[in-house]
């Protein structure tokens, strides 16, 4: 009997060995905001942004690898290390950045939840408070792990974009060519989508989360080789799904000059597969991804903040023992849901803008990460190789430049024009 049990464990282990923190983060990465951004990118610019996606995926792989490796070598979370290396002031900056980005992302998750319920005709004023309460309550009660699996399965419906993308049979040559050809425009719209695309693939919370997950699982430098492949697989998954969402929406919407009015229209790209059920399928996927991320984001925010400042944390503590923990946790949910409930606000705009905010706020976190991972006294022989740092710095600087360009072209487009002329573009 015990052998049977052991065997089952091994087989299950094999499956779960593949499903490490990297893959899980990848799934949570393609959340409501992610799908909204990919769909908008595809519908508006066709295959044009596939190159940006490829580059940001490569950078995602590098960023996640840095975080996972740092976690495995030091056994510590990112906010812990920032605090010990850079002191209170820098930690405060990092936590402010994380808090803003995460509240934005949580708002986008609740917008995703609202959108998926609207497809079934349920008002957001019912859906958001109810689901917000479900998230808040089930995490506090600790029976979250069962519910989580349901949403994880729902998430998998996004895989249907892959099937749909294949059925549509886009001009593959053109698609592949676009994937490796840099496309660029300097107007605010394009810059916004480009930054949003980067911000949705590489997120500040994702960096904190994967490092924490690696630490929690007790992965050490010795076991790291498995985690490395897990991270690479995760990055590949993120790209794979995003790629097909863009291809499917580009082929069905952009090619036929249908402009995307709302995120719900992204369901149109699923029609070749699901026909009249396209919207239903889409709303299930959106609900799953949004709920999944809505569970983790407030919680990981609370943990990161408490870890940085040395407050008591943990869901098994009472709110008296860990007031800051529960305060941050509840505040993130309330503010996130509150933004989504704001009367007259566009849910699509929240989803898209929150990803732009993530992209804009990413550079400071990346700088901390790279500085920590290059520190020999912390990382020893596992410190970043030189070429790694070169790529990381180039990417960080490009992202900062893009952000500045977005800022300038939004506030004063004419300054942008003259700037561009100046450098001869």
């Amino acid at each position, binding site marked *: *009997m*015990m052998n049977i*049990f052991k065997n089952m464990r*091994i087989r*299950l*282990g*094999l499956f*779960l*060995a*593949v*499903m*490490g*923190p*990297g*893959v*899980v983060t990848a799934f*949570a990465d393609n959340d409501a905001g992610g799908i909204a951004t990919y769909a908008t990118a595809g519908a508006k610019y066709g295959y044009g942004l596939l190159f940006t996606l490829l580059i940001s995926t490569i950078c995602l792989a590098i960023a996640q690898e840095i975080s996972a490796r740092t976690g495995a070598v*030091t*056994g*510590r979370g990112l906010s*812990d290390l920032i*605090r*010990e290396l850079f*002191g*209170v*002031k820098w930690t*405060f900056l990092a936590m402010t950045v994380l808090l803003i980005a995460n509240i934005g992302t949580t708002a986008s998750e609740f917008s995703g939840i609202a959108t998926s319920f609207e497809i079934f005709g349920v008002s957001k004023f019912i859906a958001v408070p109810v689901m917000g309460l479900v998230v808040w309550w089930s995490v506090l009660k*600790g029976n*979250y*792990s069962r519910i*989580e*699996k349901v949403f*994880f399965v729902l998430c998998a419906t996004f895989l249907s974009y892959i099937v749909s993308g294949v059925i549509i049979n886009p001009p593959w040559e053109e698609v592949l060519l676009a994937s490796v050809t840099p496309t660029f425009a300097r107007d605010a719209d394009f810059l916004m989508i480009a930054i949003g695309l980067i911000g949705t693939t590489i997120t500040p919370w994702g960096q904190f*989360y994967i490092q*924490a*997950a690696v*630490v*929690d*699982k*007790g*992965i*050490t430098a010795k*076991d790291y*080789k*498995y*985690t490395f492949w*897990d991270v690479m697989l995760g990055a590949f998954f993120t790209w794979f799904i995003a790629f097909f969402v863009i291809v499917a929406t580009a082929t069905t919407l952009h090619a036929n000059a249908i402009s995307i009015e709302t995120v719900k229209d992204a369901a149109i790209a699923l029609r070749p597969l699901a026909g009249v059920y396209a919207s239903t399928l889409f709303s299930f996927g959106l609900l799953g991804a949004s709920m*999944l991320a809505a*569970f*983790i984001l407030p*919680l*990981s925010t609370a*943990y990161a903040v408490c870890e940085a*400042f*040395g407050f*008591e944390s*943990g*869901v*098994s503590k009472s709110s008296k023992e860990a007031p800051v923990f529960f305060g941050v946790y509840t505040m993130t949910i309330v503010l996130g849901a509150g933004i989504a409930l704001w009367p007259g606000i566009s849910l699509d705009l929240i989803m898209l803008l929150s990803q732009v905010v993530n992209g804009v706020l990413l550079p400071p976190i990346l700088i901390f990460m790279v500085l920590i991972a290059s520190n020999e006294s912390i990382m020893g022989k596992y410190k970043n190789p030189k070429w790694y740092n070169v790529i990381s710095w180039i990417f960080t600087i490009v992202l900062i430049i893009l952000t500045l360009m977005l800022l300038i072209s939004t506030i004063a487009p004419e300054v942008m024009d003259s700037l561009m002329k100046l450098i001869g573009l």
Partner: protein
Amino acid sequence: MNQFKVLGEFYFSQLLGTSIYDKSGHNIGKIRDMAVRWDGAYPQIVGIKHIRKSQVLITIDQIASCSYKEVRLKENFEIEKAVTLHENDIYMSKWLLDKQIIDLKGSKMVRVNDITLSWVMQENMQRMILVAVDIGVKGLFRRLGLEFLFKNHKNELLSWQYIKQLESWNSNLQISYEKQQVSELHPADIADLLEEMDYKQRANFIDSLDDQQASDALVEMDLDSQVEIIEQMDEQRASDLLEEMAPDEAADILVELPAGKSAELLNLMEVDDAEEVRELMQHEEGTAGALMTTEFIAFSAELMTEEVINQLRELAPEAETIYYLYVVDQAEHLQGVLSLRELIVASPKTTLHELMHTKLRTVYVTDDHQRVAEIINKYGLLAVPVVDKQGIILGIITVDDIIDILIPDRGKLDTYSWFALSKWGGRGRS
């Protein structure tokens, strides 16, 4: 004459960056860090680091005046009067500030937000002594320059004797009272601390405990953490700790380990202990066999109470419980039971045969834990004997073993990656 005069009290964080002037008003640098020596009862400052990337320190007795605005020296600074860092000294900003330490009073991990210093004159010698660490919110906001927001709050200060540093910067820093303080903690508190630490801190901390303490603390942790710790530990030490544990606890852990690793650890254990554990490992998880311990007390029915009491004195330390004494025949068939109370109140010459109850509640080795719980609950037992088909007693299950199963530890959810589907995912354990 023992003069003791306080010249000033400071927050370390506020002193950092203060400019230093010598007698002629020449600016010779800033307070960049301070070196501490930890040999006496009070850790004290040996010198001030004032130039970046230089180990040259200004000693405390050179200071004429000290405030948050400026530090003035008595004489002109000469490099000959300065000292260099001793191998036992540590830098406060680099090694102490912002780091995690153990608060032995509250038995939890805290972060050093600030450090309070006292500048005193004692027997005509100037010293600067570290008084306490600030672990409160007020200290945190002081660092941000926002202390005024918490005007009405009290500082949360923790004085030195209640602190244990996590990283051993230097073996000489192990202060004698520290070990004693840690040993006064309850094993469950030590377990809580261990669960909060990262794996390097854990290794350091466990090294500082003796085998008994370490295994007591380990027993209090949840299974996942136990397995993790045993797996990462040096094998010899791991096998020592497993020996210290009750065989059923050790078996639970070893079953979870990869087969190669558990065989290795069993080989390192003493033969007798290892044998018991191996037997227990044969039972399927969740059954009475897997739950039971083999450390019970059984006597022959012919023995008289006075003999039993004498034997009990020797056997008691090893057994899991002594409140129930089991009576067996030559072939270990379970015949009866009596309580410790019945044994003690009986006259010395009574045989166990006369005292024992023969109406026994037992469970079979293959029964599941649900059934075990029902029996224990229904008859209000402290322990229930486990028998095989022939009625031979194999072990006992105590009420606390079953409580562990019935009330799952919420601590397990205490991590933010329980989003990840399984604790073992991505570890390549298969």
